[in-house]
């Protein structure tokens, strides 16, 4: 117990003791450093879906967070839903295939082992800590314990940042390095209005369109908001191969 406590204190010392104030970017870097992995990212989730990445240490972890946001699958999403760590020591050649859409692009980006740890405060789940290595292999027992501690530290740190935010708003400190992809939700609202469906159905349409066209969801959403792409014109067939009506998705 003392060992764990010393470790926690050392970590917090690193977070707080370097001057320049505490930032989410530093939090992510410390998560990666302490656990000795190649990179780390922190995903916030709410209402059972990814809401946005709070921080990432490098482009690979940024790609992984984006994929999970776009696709709604991956180690973070599973860790959040299953309420315990999700470990994939060999992403390129897993024992059992999982995350069919996530895996290929994540391996291409350079992730060979991925690990998700839930961020939890009592009964409330906040999201997940996402760790990756650029070579396959399990976390050692020490790394695993360090990751659990860091998930705990990260959850507490997010709450510290959120503590003084006005009601119904996300703290500025949390948003400063974060990528909450609000454009996606604006686009959902527009598409919902275009074809008279609910906003959640509209988000499914957008996701399906992005996946079917091999494009990032955010790019597609930007096109919708810039009015370069509409979903209500009736030429062309549905690119999504998903959802209910399937008659009117198309570009203009």
């Amino acid at each position, binding site marked *: 117990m003392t060992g764990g406590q010393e470790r926690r204190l050392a970590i917090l010392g690193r977070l707080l003791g370097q001057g320049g104030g505490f930032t989410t970017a530093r939090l992510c870097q410390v998560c990666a450093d302490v656990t000795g992995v190649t990179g780390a990212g922190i995903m916030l989730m709410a*209402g059972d879906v990814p809401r946005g990445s709070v921080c990432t240490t490098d482009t690979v972890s940024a790609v992984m967070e984006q994929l999970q946001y776009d696709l709604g699958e991956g180690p973070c999403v599973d860790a959040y839903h299953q309420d315990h760590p999700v470990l994939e020591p060999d992403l390129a050649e897993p024992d059992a295939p999982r995350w069919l859409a996530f895996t290929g692009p994540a391996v291409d980006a350079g992730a060979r082992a991925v690990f998700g740890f839930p961020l939890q405060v009592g009964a409330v789940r*906040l999201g997940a800590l996402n760790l990756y290595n650029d070579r396959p292999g399990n976390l050692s027992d020490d790394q695993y314990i360090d990751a659990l501690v860091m998930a705990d530290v990260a959850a507490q740190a997010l709450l510290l940042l959120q503590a003084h935010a006005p009601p119904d*708003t996300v703290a500025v400190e949390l948003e400063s390095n974060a990528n909450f992809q*609000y*454009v996606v939700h*604006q686009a959902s609202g527009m*598409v919902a209005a275009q074809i008279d469906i609910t*906003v959640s159905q509209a988000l499914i349409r957008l996701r399906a369109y992005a996946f079917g066209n091999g494009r990032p969801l955010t790019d597609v959403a930007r096109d919708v908001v810039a009015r370069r792409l509409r979903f209500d014109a009736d030429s062309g067939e549905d690119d999504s191969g998903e959802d209910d009506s399937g008659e009117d998705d198309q570009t203009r």
Partner: protein
Amino acid sequence: MTRESMLARTLVELADSLVDDFDVVDLLMLLADRCVEVLDVQAAGIMLATPDGQLRVMASSSETMRVLELFETQAQEGPCFDCYHTGQAVVNQDLDAVNGRWPRFAAEALGAGFHSAHALPMRLRGSVIGALNLFRDGVGQMGPADLEVAQAFADVATIAILQHRATREAQILAQQLTGALNSRVILEQAKGMVAERLDLDMERSFATLRSHARNHNLRLIDVAQSVIDGSLATSGLDASPAAKP
């Protein structure tokens, strides 16, 4: 069962209850019951201070009115009251001989059949959060070993309560954060809907939602939610000055 094994069992039981989301009242009830079993006392109760410093009974080994009233009286006077306000243990009080120190409490306690009373502070570092109250039907001193056990029980209860409060505060904050994330998403979705229906850019769309909320004295998030679920038609929105062509 020997006293030592009862004590050990109680401590294990208490430690087992200190998991996430434990019910603090259940834990305090268990503690009150175990005090009576393990210590040479006939009734036990735990009183906690409210934020404004009033003592309230949280758990009692006995639900009889007479015993409960004894705790209630101590909101004004009695060993618990003194213990809480001084932070010091008040033990081995012979109720037949307290000589007017607690006139109302002593009379009630004697009437309920108790002849001695004890109160142990629930204290962590500087702050006292309440007291553990013990009653015996006989006169005579509680031994130092019993007092030590009683104080240990009070300490366990203190840690449990403080831990519970900290967890609850963190949970409330966590709920606020996820709530804020959801609210923001709803607002962005509503902006998109209004932008599409009224052919506005996002900034003007937001201004329209905000001015409708202000004009009708509604929360922005509620207006956004009504737009999303269709209960407020976008044509029914007040145009903001900025949104007018």
